[in-house]
């Protein structure tokens, strides 16, 4: 049973409301989430705050990917280079005696933005596969830089951050909760900047360009300028994450500028949802928590993670966990249960009687393409 036009309209309106103008429910939910992030770690104790700090940092990496992939529909797999270059810039600066905690983020983010300009040029000059290949090859090239400049970067041995706790405003990433609150504060600030940008005329233009650049250009938008601006915003987010990771680990290595971190960022965004700000943060936390938990019990963790990702791509191909929440919310509680019931029933019928059962496919969880494009 396909989704009716009326349902599709409801879904679209609901999605639009959530994205463009959060109502009091979303605001309350967000406030509750922030309150929990502030209050729970000290209450729970242990290493929760350290874990959450890392989740937030990698969430920024995911958010950076989501901005480009989700909003601008540009498949960038080189964001890790921006993330890593920022971390390296911070480490190199500390090696040369810079320990001012206010100067270091400027250096890291500045270096990240320089890399972003390169990706911005790609976004102007290329699209589709060509753009993806350019970002891919650039990332491979960045991976080799530490080997070419071993004196500056430490080569494949990596580089230790100097300056002690001064470089992180006196906050110890290992002890207490101060460093966690620093990361949380920075993350909230970055999210607020992104929300402000995406809620403005700029955000609406970026969405229009992402959906159909030719139509947007015909409407008078300067596509190249908007793409460059979004790439710089994405670079700012990634570079902020790189700065924080360097402070957290107090060490940088070649892996940071490689393909792995870029792909991980993409996974976080896909799992959480590429067209929201909260999605990549949720995706990073969920994905990392699951992979860390599985790794504790099996050396085949990559296989399990692969299975989980296959399931996610099948079940939530478009907008990840956040999309699932949006659809459930649009249908209401009863609608969601009805959808789940229809989904389960469809599977059972399909197993029993074959092809006919597909008619009962997840009406509650999977709106038609019409609904998605609304």
């Amino acid at each position, binding site marked *: 049973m396909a989704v009716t036009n009326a349902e599709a309209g409801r879904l679209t309106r609901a999605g639009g409301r959530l994205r463009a103008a959060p109502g009091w429910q979303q605001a309350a939910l967000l406030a509750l989430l922030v309150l929990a992030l502030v209050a729970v770690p000290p209450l729970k104790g*242990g*290493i929760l705050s*350290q874990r959450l700090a*890392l989740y937030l940092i990698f969430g920024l990496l995911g958010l950076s990917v989501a901005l480009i992939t989700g909003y601008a529909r540009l498949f960038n797999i080189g964001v890790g280079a921006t993330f890593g270059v920022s971390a390296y810039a911070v480490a190199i600066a500390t090696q040369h005696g810079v320990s001012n905690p206010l100067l270091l983020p400027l250096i890291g983010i500045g270096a990240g933005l320089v890399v972003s300009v390169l990706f911005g040029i790609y976004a102007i000059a290329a699209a589709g596969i060509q753009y993806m290949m350019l970002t891919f090859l650039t990332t491979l090239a960045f991976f080799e830089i530490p*080997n070419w400049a*071993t004196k500056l970067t430490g*080569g*494949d*041995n*990596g580089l*230790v951050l100097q300056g002690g706790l001064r470089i992180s405003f006196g906050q*110890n990433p*290992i*002890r207490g909760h101060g460093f966690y609150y620093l990361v949380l504060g920075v993350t909230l600030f970055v999210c607020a900047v992104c929300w402000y940008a995406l809620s403005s005329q700029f955000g609406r233009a970026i969405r229009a360009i992402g959906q159909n650049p030719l139509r947007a250009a015909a409407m008078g938008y300067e596509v190249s300028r908007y793409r460059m601006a979004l790439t710089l915003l994405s670079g700012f987010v990634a570079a902020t994450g790189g700065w924080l*990771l360097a402070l957290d*680990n*107090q*060490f940088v*290595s*070649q*892996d*940071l500028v490689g393909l*792995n971190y870029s792909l991980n960022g993409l996974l976080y965004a896909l799992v959480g949802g590429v067209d929201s700000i909260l999605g990549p943060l949720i995706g990073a936390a969920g994905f990392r928590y699951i992979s860390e938990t599985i*790794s*504790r*019990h*099996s*050396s*085949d963790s*990559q*296989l*399990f993670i*692969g*299975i989980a990702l*296959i*399931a996610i791509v*099948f079940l939530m191909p478009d907008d990840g966990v956040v999309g699932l929440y949006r659809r459930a919310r649009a249908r209401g509680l009863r609608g969601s249960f009805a959808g789940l019931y229809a989904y389960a029933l469809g*599977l059972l019928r*399909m*197993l029993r009687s074959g*092809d006919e059962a*597909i008619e009962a*496919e997840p009406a509650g969880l999977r709106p038609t*393409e019409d609904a998605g494009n609304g």
Partner: protein
Amino acid sequence: MDLAIRSIRRARLRLLLVGLPALLLIACSSNNNNSGNNKAATATKAASAAAPASTSSAAGTAAGTAATATRAAGTVAPAGSPGAAVAAGPTQTPQATQQATGSPIKIGVLADLTGAFSNEGNYMKLGVDFAIQHINNTGGINGHKVEAVYADPKTDPAEAVRLARELVQQDNVDVLMGGVGSNECLAVEQQAPQLGVIYLAATGCASDQFTSTACNKYSFRVEPTANQTTDPESSYLVKSAGPKWGVIYADYAFGQSQLKAYKDSLAKQGGSVTVEIPVPLNESNVSPYVSKIPTDGSINGLVVAFGGADLVRIMSAIQQFGINKKVAITTQASKDFFGGTAPDAVDGSIGVTVHPTDGIPGNTWDAQFDDAWHKFAPQERTTIGVHGYTAYMAVSALRAAGDAAKVNGKADTQKWISAFENLTMPQGPDSPTGPMIMNKNDHQGRTNVYVIQEHGQKEDILQTVPASEVPQIGNCQVK
């Protein structure tokens, strides 16, 4: 259009319904086979997993069971634990065949069981399991049973840092060790002072920086590395082959650091590097590079500084060009670098190691050690090799220092450090090749170094450099 969309959905749903259970099944069976390879595995679990084929053998499945323990201890430690006894002073009673009974001391081991260094990581795990079995069967550390908690950083330094913190702060390990890659151990080294635990580099971690420039109070490395091995080797090379050497090397950090180390070491011995041939990493066609090696007598020998598949490719080409018949070759010749079987290409080449793969003629301690190893890990084709041995030595040194300081766990870390930095282990079951001397200034150890030469599958020792004559790695001063 509708039909096409439905067909795609059907295919996706079917693939999901069939594929997921199948993958889960594979994953579960695979997981069962490797259940002991992971974190939270105790020494007992780890030993059984490490030697799956040894269920009926002496060293067998359970490191903690009394029956296997007594037999293994009798083989490994016929005269008790001299290392521990000497380190602990004359009042300490030798602890042969005594089972450890105290509350466990936990060692958090960053073993790279997957990723680029999985070969070394698995040898590390075997070496640690072997050492723990021996320690637990001979009284433990100051009477405390030793347990290993494994974590796999997958050769990612950021993951190594995260796991190191988690091991100390969540799993409450008393000591950290491991991290095969230099970038991993250098990253974890920085964490040790803040975490307040001893950190031992073992297996891999070949960067001289660890103790030559980045040394700190909490970090130790027992195995000699960098110029500590190239200096003695270069001395032999200049005396035996001549002063002029060429270096063909992988053109990235490892190869470049090897080039520098050999240049410095050969210069100290009156030799020099007159030809340098960089080869890109993972280059499949190496003939153009190998053909640059002069065979007109302008060099007396050639240093081949590669690892893994690159090493095999280069050595094969050198053999095909007949270069090994005209100039002396030195490289990583030890069999355990090649999974236990030396390829033809390394035949005749010279190398340097801290534990020869074929044992040490005339050394009864080492013979007994190798015998116990084969019983512990009958599936292994060679002796413990250099990778497993360095892990064994690290844990043994930790034990000797712990016994000397009478430690009960992490709370005694400062006492433990004091004993460790003054530690000298005599030759015995805990240090079978010879003595181990720890340098108080930089926390870098020295053991015997062996210059070896491959002859087919046989490994001959050309020269033994005693630990006392192995040079210091630098002049770092721990704070």
